[in-house]
Structures are given as C-alpha cells and as structure tokens.
C-alpha cells in the first residue's frame, strides 16, 4: 500500500481525527532535506516494493527507508541523496528485505490539497493525500511549483552539470549521501520504551518478561497498530481504564493480555491499560518492522526519551544546513 503523507495532522485530535503522517518520520524528513524541501513536505510512503512509475518531466527526487531499492533502466539508484531523473525515465521499486517502508520526496513536495492543516492521508475517514485513499495504478501526481531557494540551487547544480556533458539520458546524483542509519542505534531490534501510566497494573513477572523476552510482530499489523505476539501480560488489578488519550507509540494491553503497539493511524483515545510508550526516536525502527520480526523492549526514563527527541531534532536541523552548504 502506498499513500501520501507528511509529518501528520496534529490540531484535530480533540475531534477524533488521527495523527496519520509518515510511519517513519525520520526517513521522510531526510528525503525532504535531500531535495531542499521543508521537512514537512508531502512524500509518498511505499510499503514494500509494489510500485513502478514514469517521470513525465525532469524530476528532482530522493528516497529513503527500507523495503525497496529504486532502479531505472537496469541502473540501481542510490538512496539518501538527491537524484536528478530525466523525463521519460521509468523507475521500478525492487524488494529490499532490510525494512518495509520507503519514502519518496520530490522538489517542492507532492501537490495535494492541505486538509485540516495536513496533506497526510486519513484512510479511516477518507480524506487527505490523493482523494483520501491509497495510491493506485494509473494515478498521476505532480510536484508543487513553489520551491525553496535551496531546492533551486540543487536543481541549478544538476542542470549546469548536464549542460557540460551534454547528455541527458541517465539518472544523475552526487557521490555523497545523508545516511539514515547514523541517527539510529546499531541494533534496530531493540526498542526503547518509557514505562506507561498503568505499568503497575501488571505483575512483576509479566513486567520482567516484557523487558527481556522477544515479541513477534503479528500478521494483523498495519498503519493503525501492530499486534505483538509473546507471553500474555498478567494483571494485578482488574480495574477498567476510562477511555483517555493515546498516541502513536503507546503499547496497550488488551483484555486477553496481548499487546498492541499503536502506530500513526491509531485512534485518538483508548480504554486499555498502557504498559509503555515507545521513545519517539525509535518509532522509525518500528515503522520498518515486518510481520514475523522479533523485537525486544528496553526501558529508559522519560527524561532520557525527551533528550533523545531534542537531540534528533537538532541532528535534522544540522543536516538541513549541511545540504545547504554543499550547493552554495
């Protein structure tokens, strides 16, 4: 499934409107930075490698993530950097087992209407993105005509270079890249969590198991949430939780003791006890998981999670400046 996403719709949570947005916001942001876009520009989120598209005009694009490698005319196109694609090029996604979701940014961002402050696709209510739905074969997308001065500089660099060599039938790109991996822990299967408000509702053995045993991503996993298969959590307290706000990254324990990790399209409220909250900086790791993958949870403090969050934001800001300096 492929959808248009930005960094989410945050202002209408009180009206039950889910956040949506890129599951792997880190990849979406790096792809945007690589083409000079604001980091909230609309990108395409591809799940696995079920797509192929034709460039109807010359295009400046970048792709980042797991799940797919781009290929054009037998040439592998490297990820994590600007790619200048000539008009007429056919780009095919080929399977990349390292992850599941890949993000495609285009100069200016994809041109879809902004609805309730975001261009993200809200699948449950059928609005946002392209006509409120997943992309399908035959769809035509265009990029916003308005671009940043940074994007214009990148375009100018490619155009000048191509004039000199006077051949324009191949995809062109620089030798450097903006690696996603440097922002992430080496082991992508260890997910850091902050204890949830209802952690104390479960017995010590269950909590110890939660923080040491592997959990397997279940088959019924999608943009709303992942089922986590593993030992059932045992309750000390059989209280009912009154429905209250939940957010992507919340791990809920259902009535049977099984766990659900809420993802980008989750409901705004929930009534199951919350054992933990995944650190926002590790949500991109979760976004790349596939059914059958095993993960482990490691607890950190809320202060650590906050500091990691701010550090990530600073890294992305530096990355924007680094790209600017390459073309000025």
């Amino acid at each position, binding site marked *: 499934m492929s959808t248009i996403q930005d960094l989410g719709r945050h202002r209408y*949570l009180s*009206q*039950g*409107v889910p956040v949506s947005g890129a599951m792997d916001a880190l990849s979406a942001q790096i792809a945007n930075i690589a083409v000079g876009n604001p980091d909230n520009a609309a990108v395409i989120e591809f799940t696995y490698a079920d797509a192929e598209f034709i460039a109807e005009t010359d295009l400046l694009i970048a792709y980042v993530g797991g799940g797919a490698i781009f290929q054009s005319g037998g040439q592998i196109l490297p990820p994590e950097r600007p790619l200048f694609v000539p008009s007429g090029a056919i780009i095919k996604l080929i399977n990349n087992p390292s992850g599941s979701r890949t993000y495609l940014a285009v100069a200016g961002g994809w041109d879809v209407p902004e609805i309730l402050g975001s261009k993200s696709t809200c699948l449950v209510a059928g609005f946002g993105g392209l006509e409120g739905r997943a992309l399908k074969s035959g769809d035509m997308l265009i990029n916003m005509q308005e671009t940043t001065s940074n994007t214009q500089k990148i375009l100018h660099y490619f155009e000048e270079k191509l004039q000199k060599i006077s051949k324009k039938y191949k995809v062109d790109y620089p030798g450097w890249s903006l690696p996603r991996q440097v922002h992430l822990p080496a082991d992508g299967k260890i997910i850091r969590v902050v204890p949830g*408000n209802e952690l104390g509702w479960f017995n010590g053995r269950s909590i110890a198991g939660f923080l040491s045993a592997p959990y397997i991503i279940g088959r019924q996993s999608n943009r709303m949430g992942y089922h986590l298969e593993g030992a059932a959590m045992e309750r000390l307290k059989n*209280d009912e939780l009154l*429905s209250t706000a939940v957010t992507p990254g919340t791990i809920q324990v259902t009535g049977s003791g099984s766990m659900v990790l809420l993802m980008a399209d989750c409901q705004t409220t929930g009534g199951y006890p919350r054992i933990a909250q995944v650190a926002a900086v590790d949500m991109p790791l979760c976004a790349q998981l596939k059914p059958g993958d095993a993960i482990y949870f490691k607890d950190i403090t809320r202060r650590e999670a906050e500091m990691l969050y701010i550090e990530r934001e600073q890294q992305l800001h530096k990355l924007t400046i680094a790209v600017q300096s390459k073309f000025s």
Partner: protein
Amino acid sequence: MPHKAFKIYYLSETAVTVEFGQQIAEDLLSEVNHLNQLLHEQPFTGFETTVPAYSTLTVFYDPVAVIKSDLPGVGCFAKVSGYLNALKQQVKTAAPVAGDRVVIPVCYDAAFAPDLAEVADLHQVSIAEVIRLHSEAVYKVYMIGFIPGFAYLGGMDSRLATPRKATPRKRVPAGAVGIAGQQTGVYPIDTPGGWQIIGQTPLKMFDRDRGQPSLLKAGDIVVFKAIDIQEFNELSAG
C-alpha cells in the same frame, strides 16, 4: 469547591495527561473542560493542542519550543506540569464552562432502524416507547474519540441498555444512531460497527470542510428530536 485528586503523568515526549479522577462524573467533566478553556486562553510557549476525555485532559506540545522557553523546571515534563499545576489553581475561582446545546434530528423509521424492533422486543416495550425514551432524554458529550467526530454521550435511559450485536456489520452508514450497552451515539462516518441501529440523522456529524469538523465537542448538551421520513429527506436535501 473541588479538587481532591489531581495527577499529571507522562504520555509521550510531546504530551502529558492531567487526571482529575477515575470515574464518569459531571463534576470531573466540568473540571476537564474548565482547564481546557483556561489553557486555550493562556497557552504556554510550545502548546499545540488538547484531547479532553471523561476525567482527563491531555496536553500536546512541541518539546523543542518548550525546552527553549523560560518556564521553570528541568526538562519538558517538569516545565509543562509546573505550568499546568499553576493554571489549575485558577479552576477554583472561575465559573464553569457551559457547552452548546445541539439538537440532532433523528428519523426512527424502520427504513433507517434495522435493530429498533429487536431492541423493543428485548425490553418488552413498544417501538414508540423506545423512541420516546431515546428522544426525551438530555445527553451530555463526555468526549470525542474512536473515529473522527464520534461523541461519547452520557445520559441514556438505562431501560434502553442493550448489548452490541453478536456479529458486527461490515458497514454502518454515516449518521446511523445506535445503542451499545449503556451508551448511545451517532456514527459520524461509514465504518464497520456492532451497535444496535435504531435511527438515522440527516446531519453531518463530521464534515472536514467545516471550521469545526466535528458537530459535537466535549461538554455540549445533546437532544435527539424525532422526525419523519419526509422531514429527513428535506433536511438531507437542504
């Protein structure tokens, strides 16, 4: 006046939850709505939005803006909870917030009410009695959640309490009015659902083109007004 228990807990890097209690009660709802209003009138640097629920108000913010702000405390959680604690002191003095009163026309005609006869049978009352009990009550919106524009209403006559359908429907149309357990509500969008459907409103409960997309908000007072098919068609067309 109020305030016994008052707790602030971490939800995520971008949100804290203020918990006023752990039961469904009008005074808690009023405290939630009051703090919500105060916060919108006096936002802190980095404040983004809130989610009011039965007995909690969750406050979302931008940690980068909060950490740079001059709010006292080390870290975003301390800064934001300190601010909310101080703001909460004002809840004692100010007047409670009055919600809007919203009339929702409902057509209980059999054409729109596939489960109305079943509900009447279960409670051994007439269909007219079910309609009367449902449309004479005054409801309060406790919270919006589950799907866009879905209001959790309090105040249904307990004589109408009915279990959900054994097998949920694959599609319930937007505007369908249903009962599930002690709750009644209106489906704002087409969705699969297991509620007993007893009527249909011509109103759009959720409309993304409206300034406030959800017709209802927490704290509103709701009444259902029975209408016939002709009125339903007129309102749908208009």
